[in-house]
């Protein structure tokens, strides 16, 4: 009988159960339950899982015979997913995708989070793949949730097809890894492939190549990014925000778990491949974003570029690199959420609210929101002293430490290019004049949950810079847990 230790898996169990419950809340006949039940149960589940994470914080524990690991890495990443889900549920308040389908919305977000937590805490390849599938299938449906909008359906279908291709390639990679080692347990695979005896072995190289490609699909790294702009543009905006923060964090968690955690001795084989993906993502993402007129599409390309920055930390192949990735994931969550929140608020006010011209003079009409957007854009571009700068600095210095100075240079150049579109948004928002008058048309009252989520994310951009030291310490603890025996 395998060792169970269910306690170590409680965060995942709580979140999955909350998802199932939230989905059934949408079935009740009473309007109040249908309306508030799913969100309330999801938020309660998030809080409960968060408490369990704090309680479990510490050295590694294993549940279900090693299938699920609860260490500092998995717990910190789980916290990121949970915060992202809480913000998204707040932002989606009274959004059209969520009014009639509140149960499905909140429930599927929770199921996706449960999948992401499985990815971050996977102790063997099967759990890892199951986690990736759980989060993907939930997201396919979430993308197509606004079934009355053709773009939303298109988004879901495109994501389904590309996601299935990515998953199958990833699975093939896992199968080859299993073939090379005869085990699915990550720790045992690490032991078997330890040392250098496996360096250059074709089977292992093929496995690693397939895994890089499969995870590249999930992280939307160039050249596996083709689906990203269309899917991000068509999906309900709150889901886009969720995908570009939490899903990216899950894909990067899988990258770190497999390459940093299991195959550190083969770094010579995978570092260059991931570095090439990083460079391609930074170049293509930033350059393509310059030409976009839709804010959602622009942020989609920006998220491709950020996948590139994050992969720099993976390519560094060091504890420092992993620490930088984890810290930047937290920062990225705050700033991307803020940026999408502004789009969500504008979208409810005017038709085509995601287009750049809808934002002409918007910051002057709504100064508080304007300041939040300014913080987000400057931080995304990497302006000192904001949190985005600290994160990028950590990533680039990890690359320099790992003798990959060229990677840091490409990253820095990419950041300069990215100023071109981030500042363009700010210019339109603060200085632009609307086409048909002095003030932007139609300002509606923003529901309190939306405002709270936006405010939390915006304040976190400053907070993560002010309290960078403790956050970086926590990230380092998580990064070290990856390699702990």
């Amino acid at each position, binding site marked *: *009988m395998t060792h*169970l230790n269910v306690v170590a898996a409680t965060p995942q169990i709580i979140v999955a159960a909350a998802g*199932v419950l939230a*989905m*059934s809340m949408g*079935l009740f006949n009473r309007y109040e339950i249908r309306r508030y039940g799913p969100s309330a149960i999801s938020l309660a589940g998030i809080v409960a899982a968060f408490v369990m994470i704090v309680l479990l914080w510490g050295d590694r524990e294993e549940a279900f015979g090693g299938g699920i690991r609860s260490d500092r890495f998995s717990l910190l990443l789980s916290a990121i997913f949970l915060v992202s889900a809480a913000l998204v549920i707040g932002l989606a308040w009274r959004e059209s995708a969520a009014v009639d389908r509140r149960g499905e919305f909140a429930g599927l977000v929770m199921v996706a989070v449960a999948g992401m937590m499985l990815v971050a805490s996977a102790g063997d390849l099967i759990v890892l793949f199951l986690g990736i599938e759980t989060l993907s299938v939930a997201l396919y449906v979430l993308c197509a949730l606004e079934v009355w909008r053709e773009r939303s359906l298109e988004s879901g279908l495109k994501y389904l097809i590309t996601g299935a291709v990515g998953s199958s390639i990833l699975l093939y990679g896992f199968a080859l890894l299993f073939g090379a080692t005869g085990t699915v347990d990550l720790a045992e695979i690490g032991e078997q492939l330890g040392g250098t005896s496996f360096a*250059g*072995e*074709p089977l292992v190289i093929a496995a690693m190549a397939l895994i890089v490609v499969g995870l590249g699909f999930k992280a939307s790294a160039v050249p596996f990014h083709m689906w990203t702009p269309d899917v991000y543009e068509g999906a309900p905006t709150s889901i886009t925000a969720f995908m570009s923060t939490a899903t990216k964090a899950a894909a990067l968690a899988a990258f770190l778990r497999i390459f940093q955690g299991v195959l550190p001795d083969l770094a010579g084989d995978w570092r260059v491949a991931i570095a090439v993906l990083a460079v391609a993502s930074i170049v293509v993402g930033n350059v393509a974003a310059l030409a976009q007129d839709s804010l959602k599409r622009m942020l989609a390309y920006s998220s491709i570029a950020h996948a590139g920055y994050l992969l720099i930390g993976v390519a560094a192949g060091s504890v420092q690199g992993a620490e930088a990735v984890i810290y930047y994931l937290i920062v990225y969550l705050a700033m991307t959420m803020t940026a999408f929140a502004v789009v969500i608020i504008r979208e409810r006010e005017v038709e085509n609210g995601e287009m750049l011209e809808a934002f002409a003079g918007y910051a002057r009409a709504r100064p508080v929101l304007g300041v939040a957007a300014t913080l987000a854009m400057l931080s995304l571009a990497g302006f000192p002293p904001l949190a985005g700068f600290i994160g990028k600095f950590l990533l680039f210095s990890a690359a320099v430490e790992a003798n990959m100075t060229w990677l840091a240079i490409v990253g820095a150049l990419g950041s300069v290019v990215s100023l071109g579109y981030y500042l363009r948004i700010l210019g339109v928002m603060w200085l632009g004049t609307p086409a048909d008058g002095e003030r932007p048309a139609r300002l509606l009252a923003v529901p309190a949950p939306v405002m709270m989520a936006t405010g939390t994310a915006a304040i976190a951009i400053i907070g993560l810079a002010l309290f960078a030291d403790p956050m970086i310490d926590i990230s380092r603890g998580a990064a070290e847990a990856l390699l702990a025996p």
Partner: protein
Amino acid sequence: MELSAYLPILVFFALGLAVGGAILTLSKIVRPKHTLVKDLPYESGILGGTPARQRFSIDFYLTAMLFIVFDIELAFLYPVALTLRDDGLLGLVVLIVFVFTIVEALVYIWKKKALEWR
């Protein structure tokens, strides 16, 4: 890195091509020849009546999908039935959790009126 290590892959590809090609060529030589009557759809000896390309209700599609979901879940239950005695209490608990999830899904589609024929 030695290129000779890739020889098995080359052999694998060659074998795949050879087997596939052999099967296709053999069946081309051996298979019976087509005639107009033989190409007719077989309907228990009765001559085919209406054309096969008809429209039918999308409900078939939904029902078929739901069937597959529950069918696969049932397929998971069979092996458990064989080993339940050895799995003991833990197996039972796991099974109950699993069945509860299925029932929950059934309640969900029932309440969503997915089982009703429209």
